[in-house]
């Protein structure tokens, strides 16, 4: 495996601070993620993980600090801004419409069209093909047709669809907020597989997850937060899952 640090830096945060009134949510955070790297963000409830992700995807504007995306200093005033540079968030509720078919979900809001204005019709065949191709690449091989509604998919498969969609639409950084919180072991495997595929195609991935065993299995690097600060950043190959659990629990034994 290559050193993560030798890869091109995708997104870097320096000294980022975010307050809510008198409450300091995150303080002086330094964080970075590289291309082809999966970073796990762990820490107790209230450690600031979700706030950090929401600063990265433009949901919050930090009070202080510098953010650099692909070498350029960026300031996001909305998730739309972050998305326009290639930061895609896969939310817990996934933003999928159960009754709609897979291809209609895949292209929702970004439909491909043919024909001249005002007669612009959906390029159905192309969208079906692209959807099927991308879902297959994500390991969803049992699917029969992109015309089937999303509600026949399992939780893990829905995650994979959302990840495939983010990847297809030019995302270079994926932010996943607890992607496996409600999933069985088998379903969690599907999500892990999708994350690995995204990483192998050169995307950076940041995952918030409470399951440290799972984080240890799929991440290249693990960043531990406590009380709004990053207290440690370890390479997965250097630690065991137990070490990480100890660090999160505040037993600084490493």
């Amino acid at each position, binding site marked *: 495996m290559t050193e993560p640090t030798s890869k091109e830096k995708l997104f870097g945060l320096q000294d980022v601070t975010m307050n809510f009134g008198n409450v300091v949510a995150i303080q002086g955070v330094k964080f970075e993620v590289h291309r082809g790297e999966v970073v796990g963000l762990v820490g107790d409830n209230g450690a600031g993980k979700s706030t950090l992700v929401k600063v990265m995807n433009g949901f919050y504007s930090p009070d202080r600090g510098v953010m650099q995306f692909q070498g350029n200093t960026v300031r996001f005033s909305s998730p739309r801004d972050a998305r326009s540079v290639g930061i895609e968030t896969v939310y817990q509720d996934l933003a999928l419409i159960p009754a709609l078919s897979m291809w209609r979900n895949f292209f929702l809001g*970004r439909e491909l069209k043919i024909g001249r204005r005002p007669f612009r019709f959906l390029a159905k065949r192309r969208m079906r093909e692209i959807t099927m191709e991308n879902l297959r690449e994500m390991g969803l091989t049992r699917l029969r047709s992109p015309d089937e509604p999303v509600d026949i998919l399992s939780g893990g498969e829905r995650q994979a669809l959302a990840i495939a969609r983010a990847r297809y639409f030019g995302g270079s950084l994926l932010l996943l907020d607890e992607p496996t919180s409600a999933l069985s072991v088998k379903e969690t495997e599907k999500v892990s597989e999708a994350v690995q595929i995204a990483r192998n195609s050169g995307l950076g991935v940041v995952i918030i997850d409470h399951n440290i065993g799972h984080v240890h299995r799929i991440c290249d690097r693990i960043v531990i937060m406590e009380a709004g600060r990053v207290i440690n950043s370890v390479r997965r190959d250097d630690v065991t899952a137990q070490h990480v659990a100890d660090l999160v629990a505040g037993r600084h034994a490493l």
Partner: protein
Amino acid sequence: MHLFAIQELGVLVAGLMIGAVFAFLSPEFLTAASAGSILASAVQFGVVGLGVTVLMIAGEFDLSVASVYSLCPMVMASLWVDHGFNVFLALGFALILALAIGLINGLATLILGIPSFIITLATALFWAGVSLNLTGGYPISYFGDSPVMSWLGTAEIGHSKISVSILWLVGFAIILAVVLRMTAVGNWIFASGGDGRAARAMGVPVGAVKVGCFLLSSVLAALTGIIQFGSFGSATPTQGSDLALTAIVVAVVGGGSLMGGRGSIMGAVLAAIVLGMSYTGLVLSGVSTTWFQSFVGFLLLFAVIINMRLAGLGAKLGVIRKS
């Protein structure tokens, strides 16, 4: 294509069964004259039903369609017949009024955050009162031979007994079916009703989509009333008071869901024809039309049960519906 892949199979089966019963009860049911009568009623239920179907797919209701259906032709007739306005000006004014009512319904629902069922129940009552007070409850009749009236519904297609008004239903149905199934806006309408929050997260302008659907349902309700005015030559303030619920019946029998996100234009048209068949069939079988509503109640339940059973059977057989 597999039989069970047809989304409208439920209403199709219900229609065939009801048609068979009436054909058995009355020998006149399967004649051209009866077809003309069936289609004329289908227009009345269908045009307004199309608008309500699209709005229901977008996840909203419009109970004010019945009031718009009586008010707008009253306004048109009043301006044109009683006050001597140009007929197109009167028609245009009636349609602008419909748009304004739809806009109020849509904006009130979105801005106040109150369910559209409540908002449009309130506006339905308000506009019904306006409609009654416009002439003090009296109808307005037209006795001339304006070409506008014949194009709205008096004329017949060729030498058949079928009114041109069916062309309005067919035209609107084709346009709406194309928009819903073949354009991005159609995709957004289904998504807005299926899960508005998720649609918004994907960049769909859910608010604009819904307001647009409210405008559509209001304008189609007005046009239904105006087509009726064209067909019969008089506008009555009390007509169609039960049309709001009948329009929902059309949408649901056609395969729509009260929860939004599902529905079919073809299904709504078929449902309107089934309602027309029921109305004509009752008359021809010697049953009083005062039983029509009871029959619609029966039909609603019957069609929904068939829809559910067939969908379940199709899923068991693993049939994929193209979307």
